[in-house]
């Protein structure tokens, strides 16, 4: 098991480096650079000013030198400096990380719990009105653009009903502390987390339902029924456990995106997370911030893939035997 993990870690490091190099070139291939954007925002500029900015950002160096300096820094976990925001990139990311983790983890939990429960319910009532209703609702949330759901939720629950705050991380200026602050953040979290969660709920529901139906037709389930086991036991121990494998694969993929943030949800709900940091950095060509966010989110995807692989081994003994 340890050899397996070590081999995967080594592979991950190589992949991470490859991603870094690819991202570096992709970002530099896009038109415009941070010096031009900053000079542009000043509303007036001269060539000397742009040249000075480029020299300050190191953009006057050959691309290969810039890449080498970046990789050297990244290997020591130094993600560079945002000249635009006058701050180290690591600090910018760390400042935004808690908000993003809170939002995406909550959405993750909501989507898995709701999705699996709804999937099991739908599968156990296959063809009935319950199945149809659950499938239809799930499809609606899956098919509707996320930003639209977000805006409608904000309008309904915030403007019309006035039940929940429509945007933001906490009540600005209230200066709450302790438990009261926690509850305030939780109130602000409900709309964005549910909106983001509902999209994935639909996927988990479809996946769980299909997988449950497939497994329930297999021979060992018939054997279990023939042995006279109670339906609940068969459902839980035999069908669900086997049906969860594809759901875990999907969860692993989704978990990888947790740190990357949810750009649309964070934008509509003014949630101060990494998704928005990335979005702003793209617009402003803030290369170091962008590379930093990509680096961290790629590392997370690789980490969660590793965790998913280990979970496979735990859930499915057949994989354990083969490895």
């Amino acid at each position, binding site marked *: 098991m340890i050899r397996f993990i070590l081999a995967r870690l080594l592979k991950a490091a190589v992949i991470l480096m490859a991603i870094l190099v690819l991202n570096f070139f992709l970002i530099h291939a*896009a*038109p*415009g*650079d941070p010096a*031009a*954007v*900053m*000079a*542009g*925002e*000043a*509303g*007036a*500029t*001269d*060539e000397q*000013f*742009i040249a000075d900015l480029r020299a*300050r950002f190191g953009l006057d160096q050959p691309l290969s030198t810039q890449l080498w300096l970046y990789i050297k820094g990244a290997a020591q976990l130094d993600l560079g400096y945002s*000249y*635009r*925001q*006058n*701050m180290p990139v690591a600090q*910018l990311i760390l*400042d*935004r990380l808690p*908000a993003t983790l809170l939002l995406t983890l909550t959405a993750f939990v909501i989507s898995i719990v709701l999705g699996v429960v709804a999937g099991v319910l739908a599968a156990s009532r296959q063809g009935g009105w319950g199945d149809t209703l659950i499938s239809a609702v799930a499809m609606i949330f899956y098919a509707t653009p996320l930003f639209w759901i977000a*805006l409608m939720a*904000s*309008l309904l629950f*915030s*403007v019309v009903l*006035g039940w929940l*705050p*429509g*945007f*933001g*991380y*906490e009540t*600005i*200026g209230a200066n709450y502390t302790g438990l009261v602050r926690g509850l305030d953040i939780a109130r602000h979290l409900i709309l964005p987390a549910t909106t983001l969660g509902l999209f994935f709920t639909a996927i988990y529901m479809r996946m769980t339902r299909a997988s449950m139906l497939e497994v329930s037709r297999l021979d060992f389930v018939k054997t279990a029924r023939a042995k006279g086991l109670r339906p609940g036991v068969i459902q839980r121990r035999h069908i669900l456990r086997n049906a969860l494998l594809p759901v875990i694969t999907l969860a692993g993929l989704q978990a990888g995106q947790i740190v990357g943030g949810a750009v649309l949800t964070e*934008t*509509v*709900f*003014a*949630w*101060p*997370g990494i998704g*928005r*940091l990335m*979005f*702003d950095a*793209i*617009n*402003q*060509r803030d290369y170091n911030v962008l590379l930093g966010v990509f680096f961290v989110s790629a590392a997370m995807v690789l980490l969660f893939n590793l965790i998913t692989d280990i979970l496979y081994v735990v859930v499915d003994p057949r994989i354990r035997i083969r490895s």
Partner: protein
Amino acid sequence: MNKVITPLVLAAILATTPATGQEAGGTLNLVIQPEPPSLMMGIVQNGPTQMVAGDIYESLLRYDSDLNPMPSLARKWEVSEDGLTYTFHLQEGVKWHDGEDFTAEDVVFSADVFLRETHPRLRATLDYVESIKAPDDHTVVFKLREPFGPFLGTFEAGTMPIVPKHIYEGTDFANNEMNNTPIGTGPFKFNEWQRGSYIHLVKNEDYYIEGKPYLDEVYYHVIPDAASRAVAYETGTVDVLPGGSVENFDVPRLTELPNTCVTDAGWEYFGPHSWMWMNNHKGPMTDPNTRKAVMHALDRQFALDALWNGLGKLATGPVSSSTRFHEADTPSIAYDPDLAREYLEKSSYNGETLQLLPLPYGETWQRWAEAARQNLIDVGFNVELVATDVAGWNQRVADWDFDLAFTYLYQYGDPALGVSRTYVESNIAKGSPWNNVAGYRNPEVDALWEQAALSTSDETRQELYTEIQNRIVEDVPVAWLLELGFPTIYRCNVQDLVTTAIGINDGLRDAWIEQ
């Protein structure tokens, strides 16, 4: 012999005397969009930075809605007869937010050292300045090499913010750690910035005008989505939506809400002026007849009514009507599709597909580009819209890689400060989207620009600028669109929100909340 500008001194006295009736206290919540990259106004000169940092930093002067100078850090000023010496007498008892005394040395350092390095727009003006001296702690003397007509118009906070010498002298200005906790002399002090959420300013209790500011604290809310900004106003989270914070189609709905007022004042100094760049360097737009066809094909009244809710005005040429020396009676550039077709017939245009770049600043601009495309197709052009983001737009415009491109620029109150840069030949250079991008060349007009900038007589300047405007409109190097109106939407009990030509960007020192 110096001439003292008496009306200005009177204005100085009035502006520094607290009025009665204002109520002190309260918190004002505003939207800021987009989030500024930094609040150090000496280094970053974009709009959002000035909107917040205009409360923190000040300059020597402010300007009323007719662009007359009013006191700020300077309480009075004199200009010598020859127009070469400007003497400013500074307010006494002014302190920086860290408690240090503000003196004339800070002004000299800011203008002569700091801003020369960091502020490209001011740098062009400072080329006219021979020396900046502080004969005593409360007097600053600017001596010019040659007269420069608009010089008195450059002492606005965004153009010449005064920064603390004791913090910046001898340091790497751009990387100074204090840039993240700005220290100014303004009515509000920086308190906290939760990036991605809000910026919090608190009242400067030691402000040099007794009783001001009235507000206790100000929050600038960072809300990246335009629809959510509208929701923030509707739900009462914010009290002020500065111009441009919501999409134009939301403006009529929001202004109908109870206790809601709207004003398009406070943009007179900037005079945001929109036009369509036409590429005079290469392609179909090199032919004046093609350019005239474009100019007359555009239904600007439709854009004004349907896309801008009637706020703003049709531009009559290169100079905005809020900018000094505007000439209203220029040759007609009115919407006339038949005339456009005539010009197109006479032109060398052969049905090439024109690439039109919309301005990537939101839905209104996108819709405007679509409407303009339809106008152009109606008279016989082939046009395709090219989608870009802001950085891509900058790059393509700076590299002259377009046929037509929407833009708008500030005019800073005077043609010599914000208009000539778009039309003089010496300002043609690839690499910047803000110079003479169109590539307009007219040596005779260039000579007039120079003459007008160097004159100190308003009468002479008006004559020269009138001629310039007529000549340029004849040549149609770009297609002028609208003098943009940016409505500020706010709760009616917020009083004196906009008291200068720079509006909210000039700080909230006069604003108060009626309880």
